[in-house]
């Protein structure tokens, strides 16, 4: 499996040795600077990801493409996840990253098992996941398994908290996870290989390489992760609470990502990206359930092409994508096969109408073709949407965005989803700025293919879910001397109507989806990140994210009176903190999370107790000319906490990992 990557590496080495055209390079550089400057002026200062400490080897310069949305997201909360995590530990899945760096509650069925994420007290299907602009949620289930998403090494992960139907389309009801691979032609070459070993049969191999010469840019990532998960746990559901070894929980995952960017002309670029992930998992049974030898094989192939050029006085982008998603499940009694082909295309045009007025218009088409055992035949569905995004800065300290999207789906029409938001800077004094933000946004979610076509039960005339979100808050930024920091406080209210839920059919022994629930929520989020750079050799960075979440629906109690009940698996309190100290070539980092009590059913009969989880890692970098070696030791679950994120799915006790990375890089 390593072969393709090494082939890629050789290609880079070959290309690096080609003589470069100095003039072209200069032109590219000028263009790049121009683009950077343009973006910088347009950008919300608030939205700009805070400067991050970089490893010794310089990483690729700042991105342009990842700002596609944030320009139009005034008044809403978008948080960039520390990209250092991925660079240090390529192969990490989104599930691992978000557990350590976000206030989101990750619902994980075991280490490496299915893991989903929900924003602001909604459910996992209310989280849109976009890869370079395309929604990659599995159309059959309408959600993404975050354990199946190991982003490539140069991926920027951003979290949009709160509804954003106008920007991100169907499914962005609670929030969205945005994966972007920035385009950079800045000349550089880099190769990295890494091997990690750990407890319970953990192994991870990663190799990546990137090359850019001003006209062509290539990036390849290969990762392979395997775990036996044969840890010991106390089976508290069984008579006598025996200690048992976890059965049927091994998995392996191989991921291959390739990017090619080519500059056709100074103002024209062509991009091709491919991302292939193959995962074989035994499915960890819950404690007290018999081992039925369940296993799941997922294969996700994602290909996309993108052309961007200056046309008709603005920037025009044309994208097309093809996804092939296979999910095959089987156990002793069930065999379930599914295959979905998705074709998507987007056309966008962005132009500056006035120096302080930016407009983007776009259209999107999606075609899903599903071959699923449970549908009793092949089905297909088409979806279209058109959108317009406006960004207006009437005053230097005021940014306003106004976005709207209308979708059309075969058989029914989701509602028009507008968003209006603003940031107002109210204070600037001595390195401190304070801004007020507010946002109102509508969202929608088209029923999944399962909701519409599953037999029996599927209902093609289900209404789409729709929601409204209202939020406001304060953003404080500090930048003075060696100390920089950002603190954001947000309060919100949210409601979702026509929430789809499967329930027993009144006419027979099966279940069917209905537009049943109305869920109302409110909460507060605090996010604070600080960096203190004492000198060249010593620095400290730390962050804290807290979420207070109320999300309720009305359910009958034992007297059949409707009562407000917290949605299951929505903790009222979740805190994630992390800190890192760097001294010369050493670093010590730690992250800790506290998760409050979570009900495990919507009736609030049962719950999982609060728990705290701590991870720590120690690393040292050895540098020799353009080579670098990085040695890292990690302890996961330092306090040996017994916890579950989904009821009765055992999680690993304290465990250890060591890794060695070798890196070679040049900068022009």
């Amino acid at each position, binding site marked *: 499996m390593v072969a393709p990557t090494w082939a890629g590496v050789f290609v880079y080495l070959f290309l690096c040795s080609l003589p470069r055209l100095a003039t072209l390079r200069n032109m590219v550089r000028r263009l790049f600077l121009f683009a950077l400057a343009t973006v910088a002026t347009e950008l919300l200062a608030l939205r700009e990801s805070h400067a991050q400490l970089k490893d010794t080897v310089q990483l690729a310069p700042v991105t342009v493409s990842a700002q596609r949305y944030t320009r139009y997201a005034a008044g809403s909360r978008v948080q960039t996840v520390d990209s250092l995590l991925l660079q240090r530990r390529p192969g990490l899945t989104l599930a691992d990253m978000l557990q350590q760096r976000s206030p989101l509650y990750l619902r994980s069925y075991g280490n490496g098992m299915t893991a989903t994420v929900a924003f602001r007290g909604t459910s996992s299907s209310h989280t849109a996941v976009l890869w370079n602009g395309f929604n990659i949620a599995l159309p059959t289930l309408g959600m993404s398994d975050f354990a199946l998403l190991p982003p490539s090494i140069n991926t920027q992960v951003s979290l949009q908290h709160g509804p954003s139907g106008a920007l991100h389309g169907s499914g962005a009801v609670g929030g969205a996870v945005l994966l972007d691979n920035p385009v950079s032609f800045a000349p550089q070459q880099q190769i990295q290989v890494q091997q990690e070993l750990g407890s319970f049969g953990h192994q991870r191999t990663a190799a990546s390489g990137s090359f850019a010469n001003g006209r062509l840019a290539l990036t390849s990532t290969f990762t392979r992760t395997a775990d036996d998960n044969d840890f010991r746990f106390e089976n508290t559901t069984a008579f006598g609470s025996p200690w048992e070894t976890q059965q049927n929980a091994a998995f392996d995952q191989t991921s291959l990502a390739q990017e090619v960017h080519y500059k056709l002309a100074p103002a024209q670029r062509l991009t091709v990206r491919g991302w292939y992930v193959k995962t074989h998992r035994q499915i960890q049974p819950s404690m007290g359930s018999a081992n039925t030898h369940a296993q799941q094989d997922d294969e996700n192939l994602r290909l996309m092409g993108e052309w961007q050029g200056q046309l008709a006085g603005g920037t025009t982008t044309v994208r097309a994508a093809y996804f092939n998603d296979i999910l095959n499940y089987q156990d*002793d009694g069930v*065999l379930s096969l599914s295959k979905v082909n998705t074709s998507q295309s987007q056309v966008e045009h962005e132009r500056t109408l006035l120096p302080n007025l930016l407009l983007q218009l776009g259209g999107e088409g999606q075609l899903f073709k599903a071959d699923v055992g449970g549908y009793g035949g092949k089905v297909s569905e088409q979806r279209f949407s058109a959108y317009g995004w406006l960004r207006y800065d009437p005053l230097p300290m005021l940014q306003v965005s106004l976005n709207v999207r209308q979708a059309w789906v075969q058989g029914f029409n989701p509602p028009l989803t507008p968003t209006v938001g603003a940031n107002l800077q109210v204070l600037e004094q001595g390195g401190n700025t304070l801004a007020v933000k507010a946002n109102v946004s509508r969202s929608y979610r088209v029923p999944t293919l399962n909701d519409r076509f599953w037999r029996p039960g599927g209902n093609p005339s289900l209404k789409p879910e729709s929601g409204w979100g209202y939020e406001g808050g304060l953003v404080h930024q500090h930048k003075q001397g060696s100390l920089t920091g950002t603190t954001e406080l947000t309060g919100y209210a949210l409601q979702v109507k026509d929430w789809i839920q499967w329930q027993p059919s009144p006419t027979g022994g099966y279940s069917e989806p209905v537009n049943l629930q109305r869920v109302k929520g409110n909460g507060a989020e605090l996010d604070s990140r600080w960096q203190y750079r004492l000198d060249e050799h010593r620095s400290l960075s730390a962050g804290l994210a807290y979420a207070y979440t109320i999300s309720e629906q009305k359910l009958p109690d034992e007297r059949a009176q409707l009562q407000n009940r917290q949605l299951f698996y929505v903790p009222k309190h979740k805190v994630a903190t992390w800190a890192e100290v760097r001294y010369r070539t050493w670093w010590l980092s730690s992250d800790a999370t506290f998760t409050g009590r979570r009900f495990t*059913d*919507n*009736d609030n*009969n049962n719950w999982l107790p609060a728990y705290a989880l701590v991870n720590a890692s120690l690393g040292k970098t050895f540098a020799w000319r353009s080579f670098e070696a990085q040695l890292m030791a990690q302890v996961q679950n330092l306090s040996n906490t017994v916890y579950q994120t989904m*009821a*009765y799915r055992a999680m690993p006790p304290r465990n250890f990992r060591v890794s060695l990375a070798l890196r070679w890089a040049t900068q022009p």
Partner: protein
Amino acid sequence: MKVNTLKKYFLYLILGTSSMLASSCDSENDLEPKGAYEHGVFILNEGQFSTPTAEVSYLSPDAKTLVPDLFNKVNNRPLGDAAQSITFVGDKAYIAVNASEKIEVVNANTFASIGVINGLKIPRYMAALNSSKAYVTEYVGYAFSGYTGTGRVAVLDLNTNTVTKTINVGLLPEGLLLSNNKLYVANGSGNTISVINTSTDVVESTINVGESPKHLVLDANNKIWVLRGGYGTPGALVKIDPANNNATTSYTFPLGTSGPGYLTINGAKNTLYFTYNSAVYAMPVTATSAPTTALIHRTAYGLGIDPQTNILYLGVGGYTSNGWAVRYQPTGAVIDSFQVRILPNGFSFR
């Protein structure tokens, strides 16, 4: 000194006599409870499949006290994944938990856990020959992935809580019935009832009853009734007469109906109650044809009838949220309802 001793002696005598009187009084009237849950209605909640959310709810005989989570309340742990049936044998209750592949054993009066029977594959229904020997159907035989084995009935030693023997029967055996030293097993994925001799534990014959027999009951005339039927074709009630060489009589349901559920019989053992085609039906054992009019037009996941009062209990509700037990008069008039746990699938009366 002497006086004091004498006083003490008298005191003991009085105390002893009064306590003797008290205890004799109790035993005469059978008032001393063996446990808080000795009598009542035990509602088995299957739970959400693949999670250990099965539970037993308890309703007191006066229907005034409900304990929705009896097992967890007494034992401080979940019952398991997908409880299928509860069987009372003397002062013990055996709860077959099919996706946990175990039978939990509890003291029937206190519901305190006293043991477990492991080594079973998908245990469904149990019948006890006496206090030390019982049979349980193991629901094996999905045609999927080239299964070539048979369905199974396990013989249990209730003294040691172990499986002593496995008897091969038809595929996906479901309900079972002991009568006259014979065990009758409904082979859910076939067309037959297997008849097992309980002294030898060997299948001595099979009775052909038609597609998918599911549940069996014995009536007052010692006739065995079978509820059967697939999901695509009409089912039937089949009467077996063990006294007449297992001769069968079929009472077929009308065309266009399907979906047999559960079969039970009243305390007098002269009226059958069953769920079929999303409704509840009653049929006297003397009827000449299957009923065409439903007693209660409601989909019931679980069905039970109190042998004393003939009050009907229906279990309804969600696959993931609290279900309801609804009580009906024998006429089909609703009495009341109360909230239990996920998927109430059975009612036992003790």
